[in-house]
């Protein structure tokens, strides 16, 4: 079943065109990896899908479960099951991590017609999910991301994902800045979420993460377009050859506007 269908997506940031015609189809149950050199538009794609106001869609359509995703506010997308793990999780001084997550979870549950969790049920859920990611309980009582190390911030993102149980998860360079132990933890957390009903898009610069989260499809983004798609072997090829060999292909593919 098609969960996400992107057609000819163009996105500008600060007036500058970044995405120049993305076409992508993601089915439920699949894990897609989006790779590409710095500045290729990987994170722009992730942020545009989450509804960031600085990312202006100038052309194209995005359909999520048959609905027009681009017409939805960021909170509507989240409530309908879209989750983005931030590349740079925001520090929010004074807002308790558990309090914030409970408010988010209950906003989503209410939207789904489920009862809100009370404090006891919520704490039980926290315990269950925090064990998986080896989240120190003190992290829950601290302010959101404030004073967290880079690795703690990324783990906290995946922890939130585990609690909120999205249908479509977009991980925006979740592996950057992680040591190998943290990377394995994060990968375990993501793998535990894999299911036939859920789709996951992994945006990454490095092949390494894909050793642990094995993708079904790998796409290479360059110059704001997907220039090549393939299976896991493509990621390994990129590891060997770098991104350089794709650049001329990107240039050649440009007039066709389709990868």
């Amino acid at each position, binding site marked *: 079943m098609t969960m996400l269908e992107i057609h000819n997506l163009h996105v500008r940031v600060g007036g500058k065109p970044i995405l120049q015609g993305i076409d992508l189809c993601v089915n439920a149950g699949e894990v897609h990896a989006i790779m590409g050199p710095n500045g290729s538009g990987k994170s722009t794609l992730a942020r545009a899908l989450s509804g960031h106001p600085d990312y202006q869609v100038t052309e194209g359509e995005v359909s999520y479960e048959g609905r027009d995703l681009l017409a939805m506010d960021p*909170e509507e997308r989240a409530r309908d099951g879209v989750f983005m793990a931030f590349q740079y999780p925001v520090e929010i001084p*004074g*807002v308790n991590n558990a309090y914030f*997550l409970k408010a988010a979870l209950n*906003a989503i549950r209410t*939207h789904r017609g489920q009862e809100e969790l009370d404090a006891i049920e919520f704490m039980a859920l926290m315990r269950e999910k925090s064990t998986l990611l080896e989240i120190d309980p003190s992290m829950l009582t601290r302010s959101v991301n404030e004073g967290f190390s880079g690795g703690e911030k990324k783990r906290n993102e995946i922890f939130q994902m585990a609690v909120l149980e999205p249908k479509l998860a977009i991980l925006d360079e979740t592996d950057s800045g992680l040591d190998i132990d943290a990377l394995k933890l994060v990968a375990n957390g993501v793998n535990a979420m894999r299911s036939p009903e859920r789709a996951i898009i992994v945006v990454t610069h490095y092949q390494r993460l894909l050793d642990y989260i094995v993708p079904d499809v790998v796409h290479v983004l360059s110059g704001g377009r997907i220039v090549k798609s393939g299976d896991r072997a493509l990621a390994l090829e990129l590891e060997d050859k770098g991104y350089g060999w794709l650049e001329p292909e990107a240039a050649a593919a440009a007039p066709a506007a389709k990868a």
Partner: protein
Amino acid sequence: MTRLVQSSPQTDAYLADCDRLVTARSATEPSWLRNLRRKGIEHFADAGFPTTRDEEWKFTSIAPIADRHFAPAHDGQSGLTTDRVESWAGALGGYRLVLVNGAYAPQFSVGGLPAGVHVSSLRSILATNPAAVEPYLGRFAPPDRQAFTALNTGFLQDGAFVWIPPGTIIDQPISLLFVSASPETASVSHPRVLIVAGDRSQVRIVEGYVGPPGQEYFTNAVTEVVVGSGAVVDHYKLQRESQRACHIGSMYVHGTRDSTFSSHSIAFGGALVRNDIIAVLDGEGGDYTLNGLYLVDGRRLIDNHTTIDHAKPHCGSHEMYKGILSGHARAVFNGKIIVRPDAQKTDAKQTNKALLLSDDAQINTKPQLEIFANDVKCTHGAAVGQLDEDAIFYLRARGLDLQQARDMLIHAFAGDVLNRIRIEPLRKSLEEHLLSELPAAGGPANQQ
């Protein structure tokens, strides 16, 4: 009242009102009180109302007070119901003294006091045992220091007197609630509070100022706090006046050796509000905390002036003021820290932050450090900013709507001050009040 140095239409009416008060009261008053009153009104007559040419009032025009005459408020209760007063007072527990229009209202006052502790209206203690207050009244709030304190002293009649004997520890808070209610005329009350905490005593005091929404009146309050050696005083001021009221409140704190004093000044109401705190650390080992939170919208103005005077060595002071401004609101913060030549090893920290929710809100903020000792630690910081757009997006991306996200961030901003409130029901009610008063996300305050 005979010697009038200056005459101006602004002050003449007050002088005439004061004359009438003196004539009515002089037969029953002790002479020291008559003298104190005279000093007050004479200084007011001399100085007149301050103007924006005075450095201390540079950003705060008190024209709304000076340009009209507020008649002395009547003692009458103006149809107040117990329910109304209860809702203002909140369920804080403990003892409660209520004054309406500056006069004691026994029917609204409740609770029992621990043995030895004295809380009464100032009027009754002046009538029954004036010697109990004579050593303190007007001593730390000098009648010639500032025009409004002088005016309050000139009209000194009633208010509250709290006396905690040495070594007495009181768990339950003592509430002093000042209600203004005079629907017919714009009137003024001059409540006076005297708190004397004996050596090694411990007490929490909540001073509340309220009035019916929409009413125009002027509250000119003066509080004197004497903190004995080793005493711990936790003071809360909740200013929730009518949004058309003028409120001038001046608190003078004097602490001796090892005294601990904390002030929590919460200001939500008033059209023109000025809070002065003058706190003197006059004994070694003292520790003062001044926290403040204000919420101001429309075309209202809230001005906080604090002075922490380190007169002796080895004292600490911590100050944190936070303001939330929207609409065309204005705020002023002036934080003066004086470190006298003797006051070595002083550790003073001042933080002042303002959150501007609209383009038209404005704050003037000024730290003022006057340091005359050489082995001290004094830091200050001021920050003025808007809600963090990245944080708002982060919260929305997790499913919170714009209003929830903004409320959560504003609540977090205020949390630094509210979380330090140690009276649980008070903290809860203030948090609720804060959230209910915040401008709606879609409203004019959202134009950033």
